[in-house]
């Protein structure tokens, strides 16, 4: 019973000013506006009869579930009280400014008491997780007496506190989890008679504190540090938002990611997983002998993709520049230069709208291997993706947004024209004639119930085939599938297929209906390359120069002459691969939006 009630209390801990004390004397989250408020709160503190309480993530979760289910245990009274408390958070007795002023006053009080509210350093002996494993065998009710330099030292942010007269419990959160501090007035006051009262009056939820003490497991089985001393390391002067209110606000979560990270530990896990995925990709490539390179972000010609670039200006050179939209053309120059296995994992920029799948800056890894072709690139892709899934998720069958994705290699391989023929019955490559292709496509799209408005704009049979593929097939490719043999017209940097006319030696990897990777046997023929790039420029001009609306000046697409010169010096046969890192992270962390895997996504200006 107690645990349940406390759990409910704790669930709202970290909330906005809940300067409420129940009849039981439980005090939760007590940011105060003024010294008067402090006194008020002190008056309300009284001894509780059963101070045993545990706060662990797991327990917290259980409480949360129970709560969400409503008064399942017949504990109506408590539930109502919790609701009132939560409601209180929306109707704070003190304004944010008052709370802030109150906490600034406390920082000053700490200084007066000879304590630094912004300490310089702290030596901790163990993280929460390390403590848990170190004292795993400590039985309930047992204590390991530690003194002096043997004491365990922990630090973290206060996320909950409960006081029972001469006893208080503080939960502090560090990177690895939470630790309970068992604060016994008698013990704390041994070295400093004011210590306990300072803890109660000057430490708020949100503060970062360090504490040293013995290890004790409470009767309820909660591992705790029985503290002999503590210090405020950083006084927080803004209260944390209520977990169940403030951080439902998705925009705010992205804008103030640090608050999101504090209040939602699973968000921290997402970014830790992101780091692991990036590290795994690097290690897989490095172990295969690939060398990581850094090519320029600032360029004079945007190449390697067809996308609107960001423009900027270099003052000293008085020269317009653009931000790279891909790393491809520079990495290929390095293959010309004699490096045989290179990659770059880094940011690329596209001046396009934002969506759940698009952020103006995103991370890609591009890989180039001399004397290889798409077959090696397919093997490498499978290796990277499956390895990440296995290491990060611990298995190859991963749930993504309710769909089970099976990352077990080998992935399905299918030519684009085949997929389209299966779906529509039309063999576009056999049609040959653009008008016939457009007619067949319009009919097929109509039958599939999707818009055919792009079809008349398609300048070639290849474009028509691709349009039908995107509209009809893409979304059906839930399980990892290598789509092969793209029309040559939409693959300006890929070699023609060695045996099938009209298509490129290329693949894209689709998972959950999204493109995750793109690879070619790279086009090495400089004469063919020139024709293709010139056709791309002509097509760009013919289709309106990238203008998206009236008054939009569009953007230029130019032939990168320097790249062509490099090809003329000879690039060996080469396989190239690009993987969208953000999208891979989304898949493996079950994130619905790219903004959930980018720490600080671009957002519309806050009004």
């Amino acid at each position, binding site marked *: 019973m107690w645990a349940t009630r406390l759990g409910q209390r704790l669930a709202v801990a970290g909330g906005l000013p809940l300067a409420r004390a129940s009849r039981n004397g439980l005090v939760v989250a007590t940011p105060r506006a003024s010294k008067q408020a402090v006194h008020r709160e002190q008056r309300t503190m009284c001894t509780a009869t059963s101070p045993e309480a545990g706060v662990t993530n797991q327990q917290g979760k259980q409480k949360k579930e129970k709560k969400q289910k409503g008064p399942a245990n017949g504990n109506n009274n408590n539930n109502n009280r919790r609701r009132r408390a939560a409601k209180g958070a929306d109707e704070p007795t003190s304004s944010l400014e008052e709370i802030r002023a109150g906490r600034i006053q406390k920082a000053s009080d700490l200084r007066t008491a000879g304590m630094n509210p912004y*300490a310089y*350093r*702290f*030596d901790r002996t163990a993280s929460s997780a390390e403590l848990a494993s170190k004292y795993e065998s400590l039985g309930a009710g047992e204590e390991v007496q530690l003194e002096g330099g043997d004491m365990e030292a922990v630090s973290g942010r206060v996320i909950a506190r409960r006081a029972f007269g001469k006893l208080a419990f503080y939960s502090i959160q*560090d990177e690895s989890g939470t630790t309970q501090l068992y604060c016994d007035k008698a013990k704390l006051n041994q070295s400093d008679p004011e210590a306990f009262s300072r803890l109660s009056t000057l430490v708020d939820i*949100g*503060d970062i504190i*360090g504490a040293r003490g013995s290890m004790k497991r409470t009767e309820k089985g909660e591992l705790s540090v029985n503290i002999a001393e503590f210090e405020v*390391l950083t*006084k927080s002067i*803004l209260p*944390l938002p209520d977990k169940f209110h403030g951080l439902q606000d998705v925009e705010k979560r992205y804008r*103030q*990611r*640090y*608050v999101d*990270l*504090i209040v939602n530990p699973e968000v*921290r896990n997402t*970014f*830790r997983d992101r*780091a692991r995925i990036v590290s795994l990709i690097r290690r897989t490539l490095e172990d295969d002998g690939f*060398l*990581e*390179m*850094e090519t320029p*972000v*600032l360029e004079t010609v945007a190449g390697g993709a067809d996308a609107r670039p*960001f*423009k*900027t200006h*270099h003052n*000293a050179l008085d020269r317009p520049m653009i931000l790279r939209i891909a790393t491809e053309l*520079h990495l290929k120059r*390095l293959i*010309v*230069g*004699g*490096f*045989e296995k290179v990659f770059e994992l880094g*940011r690329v920029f596209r*001046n*396009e709208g*934002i969506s759940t799948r698009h952020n103006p*800056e995103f*991370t890609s890894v591009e890989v180039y291997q001399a*004397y290889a*072709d798409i077959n090696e690139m397919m093997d490498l892709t499978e290796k990277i993706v499956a390895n990440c899934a296995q290491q990060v998720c611990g298995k190859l069958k991963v749930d993504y947004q309710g769909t089970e994705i099976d990352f077990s290699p080998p992935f399905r391989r299918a030519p684009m024209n085949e997929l389209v023929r299966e779906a529509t019955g039309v063999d576009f490559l056999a049609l040959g004639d653009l008008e016939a292709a457009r007619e067949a496509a319009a009919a097929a799209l109509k039958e599939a119930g999707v818009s055919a408005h792009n079809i008349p704009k398609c300048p070639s049979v290849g474009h028509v085939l691709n349009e039908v593929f995107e509209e009809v097939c893409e979304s059906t490719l839930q399980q990892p599938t290598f789509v092969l043999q793209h029309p040559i017209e939409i693959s300006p940097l890929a070699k023609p297929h060695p045996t099938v006319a009209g298509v490129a030696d290329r693949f894209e990897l689709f998972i959950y209906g999204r493109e995750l990777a793109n690879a070619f*046997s790279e086009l090495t*023929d400089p004469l063919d390359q020139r024709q293709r790039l010139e056709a791309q420029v002509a097509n760009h001009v013919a289709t309106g120069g990238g203008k998206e609306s009236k008054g*939009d000046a569009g953007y230029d697409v130019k032939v990168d002459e320097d790249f062509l010169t*490099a090809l*003329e010096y*000879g*690039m*060996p*046969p080469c396989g190239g691969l690009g993987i969208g890192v953000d999208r891979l992270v989304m898949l493996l962390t079950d994130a619905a939006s790219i903004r959930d895997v980018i*720490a*600080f996504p*671009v957002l519309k200006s806050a009004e």
Partner: protein
Amino acid sequence: MADAEAPKVDDLKEFPEFPGEKMSKAEFKRRMKALEKEKKQAEKEKAKAEKAAEQAAAKAAKGEEVKLDAEETLDPTQFYENRIKFVNDQKSAGGTPYPHKFHTNITIPEYVAQYSSLEPGVQKTEVTAALAGRIMSKRASGGKLLFYDVKADGQKVQLICDARNSSLTLEEFQKLHMSVRRGDIVGASGAPGTSKRGELSLFPSGFEILTPCLHMLPGHTGLKDQETRYRQRYLDLICTPHVRDVFIKRSNIIRYVRRYLDNMNFVEVETPMMNMIAGGATAKPFITHHNDLDMTLFMRIAPELYLKMLVVGGLDRVYEIGRQFRNEGIDMTHNPEFTTCEFYQAYADYNDLMDMTEKMISGMVMELCGSYQLTYHANGKDQEPITIDFTPPFRRISMLDGLKEAAGIEIPGGATNLMSEEANKYLLEQCEKLGVVCPPPTTTARLLDKLVGEFLEEQLTNPGFICDHPEIMSPLAKYHRSVPGLTERFELFINKHEVCNAYTELNDPQVQRERFADQMKGKAQGDDECMDIDEGFVKSLEYGLPPTGGWGMGIDRMTMLLSDSQNIKEVLLFPAMKPDETAK
């Protein structure tokens, strides 16, 4: 039908020389004889081929042209046109001048490692090695024997193409090799071996051009023009020895730092390169515009503020290795984009970070260069190099103490009085007296910076820390715990250049706000090197940043030191260049 001379079945037996076959004694003798003959013939041919090879190589070594490609004497335009014609002729004949794939089974460095111990004059005909690379030189001895030096991954192997080893007819062989040019990328397969003189070679039976080089490669002396080296880095990599080693070293430095931090449980993160405010340092930013959102954005000048926000969020140890952008001039040590590593460690201070820096940097030099002592041509390649000693611990100089000791500078009233007119006037006088030039505005921070540059940085050829900078110079560093007016900051100097900058992070939001306000005052006085206030960042501090040590290192400068490069362009694959005036 039984032949009278047919041996009786009983007489047949298996000889160890011909396992799996049963034959009569007579047949065995006959077979052995034939084998002997074959062997002698092969040896004869081999000796002949090698003799020719030796002669050719000897001639080449003496500088005699064995048989220069007629086209090598052409002018570049003619060369280019001939090559285009070659490619087009092949295409119209249904050939594939750019084949999709050549199956190699060994890289040239692997080949060198595996076979360089072969005795002179050996051919391992039982092995077929398939390798590929770029032809760096071609020599011919008649139409039937050609020698190529093929290079890949920084290493070289000789191809001895003998028509008799080739799977082609003599006519095909000659036609193929007539078309091969220096610079072409070729694939070859055949027997590993050595020439009589012991030069590691491959004796190909298969040979094909994988990618023709359409331009004449620069001569054997390499690229002389520095501009061309940077503008056409691929040519530089082909022609200039050791350039690739610089970039391998660069890659290894980054890898070392990454692994060092990973092993300490730091989490690598990626923070935005495009921001609404350019914070964390003082520099002119690049400005860009997001079309769809109609929003002006700045390219980041430092990731500092975002990384600290992540520490506020509870990621106790974070780092980022990535590009920063400053819209400034280009010179020997500055490029508009450059790479830094920044890390932030909760609960650590600048003393911890100094110890860590010593360990990391000295360990890096030891691992990547094999010694704590590094030779560096600090005064140019034509001067005697200096030795830089990375043996820890590094020297530590407290800034004001150091100035007092080195130049007798003693600010009236000490560190607490640095903000005063009096201090400013004193420093101005000292600069004049000591002959230190400080262009206006002569703020106290700038005057100090010049004096430190003159008297302290000059002392630090070996790695050394300058610590405890005044508050006015360090708006994001925490006030010193025992000396008012100073901060807990250090910079690491090596060869008199700043390589690292670190401090105990200022986490008191009120003080941070005041510091930003002071910076704005400096800006009003005309000091461009003052920061803008970032309200979003100060707000994050109000939620509480734990005591944190923060650290930054310039990867480019570190690479310059470890690769003995004197110009930042040497360590950037594609440095920013002025527009090419000579280009059409």
